[in-house]
């Protein structure tokens, strides 16, 4: 029980730190006479940018020193098939939280699908090692309490870089805490006073996730001028995509370039050359 309390207070600590940071360093305010600058400032929604940047730098250093090398070693030394099994098993252990949030969001179809996935993968899928349900056309989706709050209409609040946990906002940070508290495995291990099982799973989850994103994050770091700003934009877009269950990303309005100005303007030269 003692360990559980310690971990719980750790989670709250992270949250409190976030709230504290809201009160500290503030970004440069835009010129109120320039409506475009104000609009960009509102859209970026990162009033504590200097503080967030320091936490981001710290996270990056920790990542480069510990998590990234571990994930690279894991990715290089463990065969693909074994990593896939581990990935599937970790996902399967996560299904109760996904199911809870499917239900809380009132999504009957997805609740049923998550339930069926858990039953199929835990049995036919050999304790989750094989994602048999996906083969049967029941593809995995993720849900968490941060998404549920969003569906309920809770605003995200401003951008917040959490220590260890990375890009977030007050709503998603609160979601992290609720996900931890409602996860049956965490509840069970805390009752059995075996929280190291939960910690082990979280560690494995972190390594698995980092290993899957090795290439992508390398590319983003390589191609961006301001890594922090690129990650902030990516996080918001991905999160919006998850909350809308993949609908938002396909809508034209939310994307970048919404029509081809080149057909009339910039690339006119080239078009006439090609005709």
């Amino acid at each position: 029980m003692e360990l559980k309390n310690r971990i719980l207070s750790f989670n709250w600590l992270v949250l409190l730190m976030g709230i504290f940071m809201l009160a500290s360093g503030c970004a440069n305010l835009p010129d109120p006479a320039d409506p475009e600058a104000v609009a960009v400032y509102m859209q970026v929604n990162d009033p504590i940018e200097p503080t967030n940047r320091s936490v981001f730098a710290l996270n990056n250093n920790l990542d480069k020193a510990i998590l990234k090398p571990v994930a690279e070693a894991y990715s290089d030394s463990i065969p693909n098939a074994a990593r896939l099994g581990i990935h599937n098993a970790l996902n399967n252990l996560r299904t109760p939280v996904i199911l809870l949030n499917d239900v809380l969001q009132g999504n009957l179809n997805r609740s049923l699908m998550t339930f069926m996935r858990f039953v199929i993968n835990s049995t036919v899928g050999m304790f989750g090692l094989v994602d048999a349900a996906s083969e049967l056309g029941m593809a995995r989706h993720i849900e968490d309490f941060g998404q549920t709050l969003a569906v309920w209409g809770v605003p995200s609040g401003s951008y917040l870089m959490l220590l260890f946990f990375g890009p977030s906002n007050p709503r998603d940070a609160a979601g992290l805490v609720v996900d931890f508290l409602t996860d049956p495995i965490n509840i069970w291990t805390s009752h059995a006073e075996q929280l190291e099982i939960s910690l082990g799973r979280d560690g494995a989850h972190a390594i698995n996730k980092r290993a899957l994103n090795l290439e992508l994050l390398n590319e983003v770091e390589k191609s961006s001028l301001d890594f922090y700003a690129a990650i902030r934009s990516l996080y918001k877009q991905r999160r919006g995509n998850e909350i809308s269950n993949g609908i938002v990303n396909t809508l034209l309005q939310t994307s970048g370039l919404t029509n081809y100005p080149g057909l009339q303007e910039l690339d006119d030269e080239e078009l006439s050359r090609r005709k």
Partner: protein
Amino acid sequence: MLKKFGLVGALVGIVLSAGFGVSVKADAIEDGSRQFIQVMADQAIQSLRADGLAQAERVKRFRVLFNDNFAVKSIGKFVLGRYWRKANDDEKKEYLSLFEDLMVISYVDRFGSYAGNALKLKNARTENKTTVTVFSEIKRPGGAKPIHIDWRVGTNGTIYKVLDVVVEGASMSSTMRSDFGSIIRQKNGKVSGLIDELKKKNRSLQAEMQNQ
């Protein structure tokens, strides 16, 4: 709820558009866009994945492929956002050239692997008279879900160009716009500040490439 409404809306849309004969035209640019992406992916496999290709040659080939298939200037202009109007003609020209260099050098490997990993084209959807979204996915080795890639294609019916690439819900052009915008704000709103940073970035990428 929203989903249901969307489905009904789509059905109503299909019925209506079929009734007015709009769907025929939409189908034409949808097919054209899918075909365009498929041809581009095939070209990428052929030209970028050839055996024993030197990196410099690969970059050269990708530059041709990129300029042929992407609306490079329009994307560059979009990425600069509101600062495009503030830049003078020389800055615009220099910026577009540096933007193209950055795209070519930093995406040559990624594009090769996207196109090479058997890009699986799915459906396409007409967004408006000149824009189609082509949905696709690629399988990743080492398990996990396939990556969803949406190609935003602009067309006038005969010419097709990629306007944006949306990877798992994140638009590349929007991400770059935030990235570049943040740099310009740090440089007191000066496009020349961004140009300096782009030069630095391209130089370091170039050096990194030669060391490989």
